[in-house]
């Protein structure tokens, strides 16, 4: 109650201060409470439910509902079992009346392909020197946990983007399939904006490793040689501790995991590490529970592994991208609270609120709407510019060159071929010592702007154009309207949007008016707060949703206890991070990151 009142007061103050200047222009002691206040405002005003009729989802629980995560994400909120399960609708961060998909005439204006060519195309790779390629690898690893709109609609009339005379795409139009429409629309949806469903679980439950259905969970646990679950609830890895090939995958030699779409070497590295980590957790829990069956060990290891990933994301990955005292404090505060890690380790939680001792262990709370990933969150996580077009692989012990590869050559089924040329440690070392691209204009990987979807059939996609089109199609407001909804100051001109004179002119030429600028383009054009790897606009959604993923989840709040996780599992989460995970599974790489403050910063070269 006191905490809620304090947050409301901070919310009022933050609203007032925002009239004068952005939070990052204040000193630390003002900026941090302002951020807490901004988050309180966002929780109150920027969470909207899209379920209008009683849900048609009918989850069936298996095992111990209270102490295990369900494969499909159901029964997390015991009062609303389908909340956040696979197949539930995406929510929204802006009022529902403003979420209608754009209508055809304006939907294609300006032409997304033109935007891709004139504003997104990478002219010269702009790196982020203080980050490594593990950043985009981790990002995609997480996104696959949280959301997917699934395959596009092949039956609906596709979008047809007219091509200019000077366009080298070929032909006179670019065809883009529509997003798959919600298959379960009810009477309450009449006259309402279109909705979309998340085919993955919405929760932070490691579903990218384990899958979002019982069948997928069973697949990753089953040894194909015997057709039985692996012993002790472990995940199936090959004898050399590498991921096996997916027996059901449509792509030859594609590695197996809970989610293995858009596969590339970065994802492979993360999935391999955390599959190994699962098995290591099993071994530890089994030491305390020698007579426990495989199901118990699997479920407990999954809980622990998912929480460890959530912790790494909260206290390591995000602070690497928000490399400022305020950004780091607020994100670490989500996990450890204002009192910090040392206090938490020494004395445990103080009070029930999340401000002092962090969200884990505090009471669950959904705030203004039932928990769901949102379309706006999906939109601000479009960070393809982080990806390089080319990769240089080197030996981890000598830095000697192994091979230079294009993005296409490290994707899909080609990944297993790479491991024939180099060790897993070499691949991880190479990614950890390379820089990602900066989230700025003219830095969208050209490989993804002509992405080989099905090259044999002549099917390519321009992901730059598709990113812009998807936001419009799904009713994500354009940049200025989006900021208005978040209570942010809105640029009145291109001069206020960016201080780069060349960009201003290019934006003006393409958009005409600043109000027309797309969200993706605006976030790439605006100047990020000092030390930040992404825009303040995206950051607002992050501070809302990053804490929500924890705060809404029973397994991070009321059931974040040694009784549910086991004592060994609970301590494992407290005592581990990305550093110890890599140390455990790739001990030979220890020297490469021994002096690195954050594991997502570039490691030392050999």
């Amino acid at each position, binding site marked *: 109650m006191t905490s809620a009142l304090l947050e409301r007061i901070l919310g009022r103050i933050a609203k007032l201060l925002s009239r004068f200047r952005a939070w990052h222009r204040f000193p630390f002691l003002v900026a941090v409470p302002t951020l807490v206040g901004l988050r309180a405002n966002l929780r*109150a005003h920027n969470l*909207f*439910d899209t379920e*209008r009729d009683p849900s048609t989802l009918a989850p069936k629980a298996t095992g111990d509902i209270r102490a295990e995560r369900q494969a499909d994400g159901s029964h997390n909120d015991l009062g609303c079992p389908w909340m956040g399960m696979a197949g539930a609708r995406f929510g929204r961060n802006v*009022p*529902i*009346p*403003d979420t*209608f998909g*754009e*209508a055809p*005439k*304006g*939907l294609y*204006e*300006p032409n997304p392909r033109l935007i891709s060519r004139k504003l997104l195309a990478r002219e010269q790779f702009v790196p982020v020197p203080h980050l490594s390629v593990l950043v985009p690898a981790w990002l995609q690893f997480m996104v696959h946990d949280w959301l997917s709109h699934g395959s596009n609609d092949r039956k609906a009339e596709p979008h047809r983007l007219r091509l200019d005379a000077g366009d080298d795409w070929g032909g006179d139009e670019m065809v883009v399939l529509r997003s798959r429409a919600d298959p379960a629309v009810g009477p*309450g949806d009449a*006259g*309402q*904006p279109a909705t979309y469903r998340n085919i993955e679980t919405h929760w932070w439950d490691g579903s990218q490793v384990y899958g979002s259905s019982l069948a997928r969970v069973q697949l990753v646990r089953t040894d194909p040689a015997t057709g039985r679950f692996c012993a002790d609830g472990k995940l199936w890895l090959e004898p050399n501790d590498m991921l096996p090939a997916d027996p059901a995958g449509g792509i030859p030699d594609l590695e197996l995991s809970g989610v293995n779409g858009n596969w590339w070497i970065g994802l492979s590295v993360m999935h391999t590490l955390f599959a190994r980590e699962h098995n290591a957790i099993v071994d530890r829990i089994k030491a305390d529970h020698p007579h426990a069956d495989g199901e118990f060990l699997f479920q407990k290891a999954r809980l622990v592994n998912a929480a460890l990933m959530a912790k790494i994301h909260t206290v390591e990955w995000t602070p690497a991208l928000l490399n400022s005292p305020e950004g780091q404090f607020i994100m670490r505060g989500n996990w450890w609270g204002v009192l910090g890690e040392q206090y938490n380790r020494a004395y445990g939680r103080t009070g029930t609120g999340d401000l002092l001792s962090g969200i884990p262990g505090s009471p669950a709370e959904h705030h*203004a*709407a039932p928990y769901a990933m949102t379309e706006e969150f999906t939109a601000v996580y479009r960070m393809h510019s982080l990806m390089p077009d080319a990769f240089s692989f080197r030996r981890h012990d000598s830095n000697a060159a192994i091979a230079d590869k294009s993005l296409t050559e490290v994707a899909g089924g080609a990944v297993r071929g790479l491991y024939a040329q180099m060790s897993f440690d070499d691949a991880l070392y190479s990614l950890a010592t390379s820089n990602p691209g900066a989230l700025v204009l003219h830095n969208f990987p050209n490989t993804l702007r002509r992405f080989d979807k099905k090259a044999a059939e002549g099917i390519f996609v321009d992901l730059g154009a598709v990113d812009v089109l998807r936001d*419009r199609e799904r009713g994500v407001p354009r940049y200025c309207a989006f900021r208005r909804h978040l209570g942010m100051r809105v640029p009145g001109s291109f001069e206020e949007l960016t201080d780069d004179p060349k960009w201003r002119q290019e934006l003006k*030429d*393409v*958009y*005409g*008016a600043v*109000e*027309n600028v797309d969200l993706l383009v605006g976030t790439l054009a605006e100047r990020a707060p000092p030390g930040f790897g992404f825009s303040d606009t995206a950051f607002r959604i992050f501070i809302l949703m990053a804490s929500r993923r924890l705060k809404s989840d029973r397994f991070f709040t009321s059931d974040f206890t040694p009784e549910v996780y086991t004592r060994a599992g609970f301590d494992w989460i407290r005592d581990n991070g990305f550093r110890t995970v890599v140390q455990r599974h790739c001990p030979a790489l220890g020297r490469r990151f021994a002096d690195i403050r954050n594991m997502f910063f570039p490691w030392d070269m050999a």
Partner: protein
Amino acid sequence: MAMSLRIPGLIDIRRIAARAEIAMVAADQRFDRGFTGHGPLINRLIQRRVRNILCLKGQKLPSAAARGDAGRHAAQQRLAARLDDPSSYPLWSKEALAELGKAVRGEGTARSLGVMTQEAVGRLFAADYRADDASFRAAQVLDAAAHTRNPIAAAIWVWTGKVARAQRLLGRLVQDDAAGVHATGIAVHNLVLGFERMRAIWAAPGLRARLSPDAVLARCLVAPPSVLRQATEKGACPIGMFRPGSLVMLALEEARSATPAPEIVFMAGSWARCPAATWVPEFLRAVWAEAQADQSGRGGEAGGS
């Protein structure tokens, strides 16, 4: 977000904005709007203000009449039957449509948006209804007195006779039809706000080309900011405990941002359903179509590329 304030003997009021809670209170027979003057001091003052302002010649306007009021129910049914009847459409004149379309496009009009809208609404109750600046000012007085958070200002308006003069003027224009006074004095402001939003959409560069008619309608349908209900007996429900005279404020416009559905905007499906639940959306659609139709003959829009 639900909020409540209770100081025994002084105030007992709760504000709700969640769809489910609003639906529950709307359906609960223990909540009414007779405003009988029970409850703590401030609750009684609020109820007295509502009774004094939302009335005409001693008769409560429909928006203040109790659910069991037979006259209210019959009048609501009659009006709804007329406004819901598709064969009677259009229930507006071509001139009104043209004038409003022009206003939405931001072209100069001799009369204000408020006056034009009030006249269009008034014609539903009196075929010769003529709105002017004075009649719209009267509507503004009535609305401000009903909704102001400044009880002293409201009291002054009542005591100086300003509210009574506004009631008389608005009543005269509709032959003292209580529903007509409510429509032209209170509800009209939601419609005016809707047209102002429509005008903003029209003026925003590129926006109107991106919005479907459904999207425009969803943005321009405005719900009453809030409506009051009074508990008639002691009890409990999911929003909490209540006593006779406890007030519950249904924050409909806030709820609309999460649920832009008729059940919120017009309280459709409840005993307090707005009889214009069909007419208002149809009218908004017609004005938007008029604005677009006229503009299509004049070349493209400004802004964008």
